[in-house]
């Protein structure tokens, strides 16, 4: 079965991926710090048998005991956004439920008892939420979730109280970055009650011009309102990015940079992850704006999920050193692009 990131993206010219997650706790067990290991094991069993009732169509759930994975395999899961960092710190008694296409990952015994996560290609908040919601329905048929009339779903951290819903969209904003209005955008977006973040390297600025916008408030809004608030703002950001792109793409220097990046990815024999992300970002802009016709967004999405250090090692079935990784990374990119 093809992985989720090979699906054609909605609004893929700017939307890289969408993530929705629900936090749930089971009433009969104390939270993370206080639950016993027999409680954790029992919880894993309960989730497993509840999910046996779920029909995912062609997709299937796999149940993974975190302890049975190698260190590298665990880090690869993190690189592909399938688990959280917290989840990996203490693998004992933790279970990951992973759908075959990796679009659904359910962490059991994470910070909250259950975290349901759905990933979608491009911007698809509605689709991601619907599936999350369906899984939550199935689980709540047999599990009694901790809930309070005023505070909603009760969570380990008060930041998730209410709906327990966290939704985010990862956006590719190279043009807004180039015209230097990201700081202003960050201010505006956070004023709307949302959080915006970018991952960056030492001196390179934000990696791959990728910014994640997420909701922050989970109490006092319905799930639908949270999703549509986020959707409205993401749409506006997308519009400004499109406007900025129309401007910068009149510039032959920008076009030249995009095409040079394509050349490097297509022919390089060794490439570091930093370099790869920077060129993938340029090529992505070129593909979205039809300057480069040779590559698909699906392929670029696949590469984003494949060139991480641990992911490359797991793929090669051995621990690769930095030089070997750079060789493998360049080969993988050449094969796909």
């Amino acid at each position, binding site marked *: 079965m093809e992985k989720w990131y090979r699906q054609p993206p909605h609004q893929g010219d700017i939307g890289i991926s969408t993530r929705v997650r629900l936090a749930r706790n089971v009433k009969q067990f104390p*939270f993370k710090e206080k639950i016993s290991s027999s409680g954790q094991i029992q919880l894993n069993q309960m989730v497993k048998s509840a999910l046996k009732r779920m029909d995912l169509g062609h997709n299937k759930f796999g149940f993974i005991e975190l302890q049975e994975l190698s260190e590298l395999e665990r880090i690869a899961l993190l690189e592909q956004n399938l688990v959280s*960092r917290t989840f990996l710190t203490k693998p004992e008694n933790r279970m990951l439920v992973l759908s075959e296409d990796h679009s659904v990952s359910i962490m059991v015994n994470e910070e909250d008892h259950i975290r349901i996560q759905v990933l979608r290609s491009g911007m698809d908040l509605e689709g991601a939420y619907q599936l999350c919601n369906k899984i939550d329905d199935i689980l709540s048929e047999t599990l009694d979730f901790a809930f309070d009339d005023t505070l909603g779903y009760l969570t380990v951290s008060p930041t998730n*109280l*209410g709906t327990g*819903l966290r939704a985010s969209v990862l956006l590719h904003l190279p043009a807004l970055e180039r015209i230097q209005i990201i700081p202003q955008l*960050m201010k505006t977006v*956070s004023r709307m*009650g949302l*959080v915006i973040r970018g991952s960056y390297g030492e001196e390179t600025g934000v990696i791959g011009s990728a910014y994640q916008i997420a909701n922050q408030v989970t109490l*006092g809004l319905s799930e639908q309102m949270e999703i549509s608030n986020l959707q409205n703002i993401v749409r506006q950001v997308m519009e400004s990015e499109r406007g900025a792109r129309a401007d910068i793409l009149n510039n032959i220097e920008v076009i030249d940079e995009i095409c040079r990046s394509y050349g490097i990815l297509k022919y390089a024999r060794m490439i570091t992850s930093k370099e790869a992300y920077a060129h993938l970002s340029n090529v992505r802009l070129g593909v979205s704006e039809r300057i480069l016709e040779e590559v698909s967004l699906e392929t670029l999405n696949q590469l984003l999920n494949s060139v991480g250090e641990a992911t490359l090692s797991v793929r090669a079935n051995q621990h690769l050193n930095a030089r070997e990784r750079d060789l493998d990374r360049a080969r993988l990119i050449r094969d796909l692009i």
Partner: protein
Amino acid sequence: MLCERCSRNQATTMLTQRVGGRTVTEHLCAECAYKGGFSSLFNGFPFDQMVANLARTHRASGKRCPSCGSSLEEIVESGRIGCSECYTVFRRELMPTIENIHGKAAHIGKRPLHRKEEPPKRLLLAQLRDDLQKAVQEENYEKAAQLRDEIRGMADPE
């Protein structure tokens, strides 16, 4: 650059959010960023002194959650609640923190399947009307339209 929160790891994430009515941009390590910058939930906000004082009073009183044994002090220190019962036992003490994060609000979203009984509709409607008024004042018309639909939807069956 080192993480501005833990000062231990390399900062890899720039995070901008609204905290207590102000826009804050922080440079955080992956670990702190995952916690949404909220890792020290009870520190760094104007009210932490208040919560810390409460915790001190509580240590004296020795009040603990009968279900999981957590004291308020433990909760404040870790930023993590011990069990669902803690929310009842320490509700009064936790409310200022909760309101600082979410505003004064009550849950209006989904409910677990077997707990279908709705909270009093009157309260929900009042809350929604408040929000609507605020949205109109802020000229946030998209939100206002949404709220109006929601209020209409609730009023319908009666």
